[in-house]
């Protein structure tokens, strides 16, 4: 037992122990915190809570980092969606990438054959045995096709789907303390499970890539790879190689000027807004490694495993924000609140009013009206992120969570985090208008693969 317990990532059993330990540790201290609440006055309560938050944040981050498996993403989303973490930890969590165990060259080659029926050296002119990047659920190798085209080959760790299904069985039991406190509905876990299981199907990801490449065509600075369907399966994805440096390397090398950072930030926001308002589906894995930046400012988008397609209600909600529907009277404002938090919110008018005000203020902070005088938003100062966390905190405390937001919030926070890292100063309303002015591809919900 002792030996297995020391294991960090290799086995389901070891992972189970760690998840259990994480759940237990949180249960213990969380219940302890709730119990102590009964005996503390308001001032002491706040201090105690802060101490708990710091401890829990540290604990969750360390545990999730060591897990690295499929369960990490759920932990990441749940942590980001719960009010137990301070903003600093949330921001770090947004950068965590779901990683499967690393594969040595012999295993990667064996898995390639198991899925495609042939060894890499039989189908490629050249295949690099060592991976050049980690990807969600697998790793990426460089290769050259027989026609001489440079490609990136994503290979999934074997049997990861069944491992994920097992992890969710475990998580449903260990997430109990969180559900107990009323913060995580079964609907939320189911939504996250759906999203992660979808990621295990690389053919689905290939279709996402084809879809986004076509839909993002209006943005000439965004590059999306081509899929080599003849060299792809549910577990192998062969794509054209996208040059460029991961965002963090781009920032680290050569220290780009404020002007370049602003331009890049503006492009990231524009691309996100086009997906949100024009395409109605977003690339929902905002890990900085998924953005490959070239020296001319071209942004290569990779890893389309996690894509969130919007429901009709969500599309209506986004439109309502854009049109500042709350200015049209109480009836519209009520409808708006229902779209965000569900019909139940009407029965709590005071909470609804408070949440609505926060959401509107946040939107005005993000996209100030042209005549307000504050056209440029500074993402570097962290105010946006902090406000967003506070809103979530209130939503969760008031049990107004909407599962539809699980992946969207992660993508949105990931974007603001990227802009924060960039230290970008952006005229957000102008960026949004640019999206409106561009001729977009006509598409609806039914066209999304």
């Amino acid at each position, binding site marked *: 037992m*002792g*030996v297995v317990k*020391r*294991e960090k990532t*290799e*086995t*389901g059993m*070891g992972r189970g122990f760690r998840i259990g330990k994480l759940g237990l540790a949180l249960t213990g201290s969380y219940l302890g915190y709730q119990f102590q609440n009964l005996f503390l006055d308001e001032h002491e309560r706040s201090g105690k809570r802060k101490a708990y938050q710091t401890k829990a944040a540290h604990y969750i981050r360390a545990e999730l980092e060591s897990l690295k498996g499929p369960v990490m993403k759920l932990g990441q989303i749940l942590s980001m969606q719960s009010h137990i973490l301070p903003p600093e930890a949330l921001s770090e969590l947004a950068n965590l990438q779901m990683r499967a*165990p690393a*594969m*040595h*060259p*012999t*295993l990667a080659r*064996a*898995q390639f*054959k*198991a*899925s495609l*029926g042939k060894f890499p050296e039989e189908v490629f002119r050249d295949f690099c045995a060592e991976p050049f990047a980690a990807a969600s659920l697998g790793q990426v190798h460089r290769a050259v096709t027989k026609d001489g085209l440079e490609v990136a080959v994503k290979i999934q*760790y*074997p*049997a*990861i789907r*069944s*491992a994920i299904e097992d992890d969710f069985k475990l998580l449903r039991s260990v997430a109990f303390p969180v559900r107990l406190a009323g913060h995580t509905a079964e609907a939320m876990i189911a939504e996250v499970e759906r999203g992660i299981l979808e990621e295990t199907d690389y053919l689905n990801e290939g279709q996402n890539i084809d879809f986004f490449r076509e839909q993002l065509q209006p943005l000439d600075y965004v590059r999306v790879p081509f899929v080599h369907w003849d060299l792809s399966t549910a*577990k192998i994805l062969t794509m054209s190689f996208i040059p460029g440096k991961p965002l963090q390397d781009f920032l680290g090398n050569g220290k780009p000027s404020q002007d370049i950072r602003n331009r890049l930030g503006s492009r990231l926001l524009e691309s996100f807004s086009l997906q949100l308002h024009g395409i109605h589906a977003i690339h929902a894995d905002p890990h900085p490694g998924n953005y490959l930046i070239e020296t001319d400012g071209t942004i290569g988008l990779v890893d389309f495993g996690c894509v969130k397609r919007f429901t009709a209600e969500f599309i209506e909600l986004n439109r309502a924000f854009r049109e500042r529907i709350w200015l049209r009277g109480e009836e519209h404002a009520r409808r708006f609140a229902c779209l965000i938090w569900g019909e139940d919110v009407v029965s709590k008018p005071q909470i609804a009013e408070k949440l609505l005000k926060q959401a509107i203020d946040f939107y005005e902070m993000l996209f100030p009206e042209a005549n307000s005088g504050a056209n440029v938003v500074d993402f570097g100062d962290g105010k946006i992120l902090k406000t967003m966390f506070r809103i979530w905190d209130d939503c969760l405390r008031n049990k107004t969570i909407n599962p539809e937001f699980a992946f969207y919030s992660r993508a949105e926070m990931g974007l603001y985090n990227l802009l924060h890292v960039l230290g970008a100063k952006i005229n957000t309303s102008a960026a949004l208008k640019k999206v409106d002015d561009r001729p977009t591809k006509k598409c609806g919900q039914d066209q999304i693969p």
Partner: protein
Amino acid sequence: MTPLKVKSRSGKRAKNKEKTQREILRAALELFSKKGFFRTTTKEISDKAKIAEGTLFNYFKTKEDLALYFFEQELVGLIEWYRDQKKLHEAPLTEKLFAIIHGHLERITPYEEFVGAVYLRALQPLSKLNLLSLDTQELNLRYLRFVQQILRDAEVKGEIPKLGDFGAYAFGLFHLAIISYWLQDSSAGKENTLALLDRSLKLTNSILRKGAWEW
């Protein structure tokens, strides 16, 4: 000069013998894959190999002898293949051990049904194919020495603590267990076997490295 001639003649004879043995095995494997190990008769094998049934018995007394010859050929092939993998010799121990079992599985994949039948037969205590039978000992020893050498190299490099002869035995049993699992594995491309193999080797390696083995 004369002794050389004798040697050459006996060498040629041995080569011919080996050629016939291989031809018989090839014919037998073809029939096993069509009709199954148990339902194929020695008459059918000799007909297919275009030899008299009596000649077949000169080479293999029973189908079990044929199966033993098959595994011997596979082991020789596996050892030769491993020796040629120069890059692999520089890899960590877990990758080497993974490659040995995976390489073996790749070799026997075309004969999966036959291997399954042989495994069943080997469970019988009186079978020549039984792990404890004297007939399998020579094969076992060759295998154990091959693995032992790899483990010793890892010991010298400090990758694992000293395991003595036990290490090779334990790996041999693990190898057999993985083949049993592989025979039952119905996952696409038998990827569950790959995951099991990878995880068990990593776990074992991790336990050994952490010194839990030393007492």
